[in-house]
């Protein structure tokens, strides 16, 4: 059987705007993936613990409050610490272009800005996950 792709969609920090996270979750489901959505107000620790328990292939982080520079790298670092460094991490929200190189360096493989078609995200996940 084709292994189902499992994706965790999470909202770190205090930002409560979940429209994007929910739309992306539905789009991924419609593309045949299994999506776990954590809801809002998650700490990086909660997100990583969830990613490990659910053994996800990919993790999407959504943040519109400007706290991405602090929170996204923290999540990646924790993933590595817990031995889950092979999880493909991507992000979205309100993220200035100039922050993207720094985030990529910190281990976030892609940033999808407002206006990105969901198909782009879907293709990115399919093409970049490491499935054993």
């Amino acid at each position, binding site marked *: 059987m084709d292994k189902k792709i499992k994706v965790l969609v999470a909202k770190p920090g205090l930002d409560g705007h979940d*429209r994007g996270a929910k739309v992306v979750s539905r789009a991924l489901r419609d593309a045949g993936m299994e999506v776990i959505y954590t809801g809002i107000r998650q*700490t990086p620790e909660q997100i990583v613990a969830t990613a490990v328990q659910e053994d996800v292939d990919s993790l999407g982080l959504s943040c519109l409050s400007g706290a991405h520079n602090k929170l996204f790298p923290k999540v990646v670092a924790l993933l590595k610490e817990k031995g889950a460094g092979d999880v493909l991490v991507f992000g979205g929200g309100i993220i*200035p272009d100039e922050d993207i190189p720094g985030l990529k360096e910190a281990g976030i493989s892609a940033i999808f800005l*407002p206006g990105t078609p969901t*198909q782009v995200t879907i293709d990115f996940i399919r093409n970049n996950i490491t499935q054993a």
Partner: protein
Amino acid sequence: MSCTEKKARLAERQEQWQEMVDKALARFPERKEAFATTSGIEMKRVFTPADVEEIDYNDEVGFPGEFPFTRGVQPTMYRARFWTMRQYAGFGSARQTNERYRYLLGQGQTGLSVAFDLPTQIGYDSDHELSDGEVGKVGVAIDSLADMEILFDQIALDKVSTSMTINAPAAVLLAMYIAVAEKQGVSSDKLRGTIQNDVLKEYFARGTYIFPPRPSMKIITDIFSYCKDNLPNWNTISISGYHIREAGSSAVQEVAFTLADGLAYVDAAVKTGLDVDVFAKRLSFFFNVHNNFLEEVAKFRAARRLWAKLMKERFGAKKASSMMMRFHTQTAGCSLTAQQPDNNVVRVTMQALAAVLGGTNSLHTNSRDEALCLPTEDSVRIALRTQQIIAHESGVADTIDPLAGSYMIESMTSEIEAKALEYINKIDGLGGVVKAIEAGYMQQEIGDSAYAYQKSVETAEQVIVGVNRFTIDEPAPKNLLRIKKEMEIEQLESLRTMKAKRDATAVTASLKELRQVAESGDNLLPVIVSAVKTYATLGEVCGVLREVFGEYTEA
């Protein structure tokens, strides 16, 4: 020619015209098979007198300032005073924000609107674990009365009206505002402004809730009661549809869910013994204004009319002021594009014009760079100028509700009203807003609309200029507003300093009293006012309330 004869002749003419249409369609099909708004309302090829036959001008449209207020809530509207030009602003520290406020007031803004950062909106101090990275980012960080004093430095609180976008901890921020005014020598009864204080929408559209619904409603009715006696000119709630729309709802859903929330608040207040004709005049609303120009104009008129009817029918309101829907509008943040940001000035202009033609009482126009970050000074000035140009140069403010009588506008106004009422009745059937939230009803409806919209954009059925058509290769935008990293460190430092200076015993005593009052069920406002005066922090006050009332978890 009699009425019936006129009607018959119209029908005949329309049939003849249809032949012409059919010929044209054969040569050139129309751009779409069907034209409808995102609410599902048909945009007919033409609207005619036949479409408004059933609408009685006197009963349904009427005159501005008179029930059902379709044409506006004042008899003279903008001819007497333009809408309040109130730009939402706030970021970083109280000092920085204070500078931006004084700049905007100097540029002709007529009211203040405070944006708080997320920790403040969720009742956490800047040094809370969850505040890490969030301090000062989406608004100003207020940890205590000390910050509030800096925020309003050199701003006379008896001369400005201030709108504060604060919900779950609204009582605390209001208490701080009252304390600042006192220090300025301004008595509470002179204070004018609004607190958003609309917790219901937080649960299904915005996410900055703290406590569960029941204690939250209690705090809200406490505020109604306290203000009735102490701040007679203060708007105690801004029942919001803006965020519901931003979360992806349609225009009809925006009206329906907002008014449903409104009904829930009025109901809660009446149940505590408040007289609807005493507190209802201090309710206000807050709507979005989105791209579909005509639907938006009709939406505002429908909302006013529907609310007036509901207040009369469901609560027996007798005074006109109890049935009048006064509202603030903000142009749609979700319509702004990160691509070719200057295009946003055009979008905001159209949206602002729709709000004005819809009779808004107060308006915020977004800045062009807000899909990227908070606005720069230049961008926010253009946004303000947009309003000023509409006011002074376009002429639309010289007559009231100019689009009234348009077959299309009146027809659509009635349809939006009818469809919104259907939703409201559905929510009633579910047992009211709180039960509907627990059942995930609004969340599901909004999620469905949002997803449908996304799909229409991805198939380019809905064109978004610069995003799915008319795109260019563009360089990364420059000169965006950034909140300096140091800001969070400075805020933590000033919090520490403030805590060291204050009278710790007084703080402890006031928090103890707060707990007692919270447990007893008495009105919380007086004890919160005392607590903030001792420089108890927002986090400390909300911390006590969290312990007593519990915290809400997402349904």
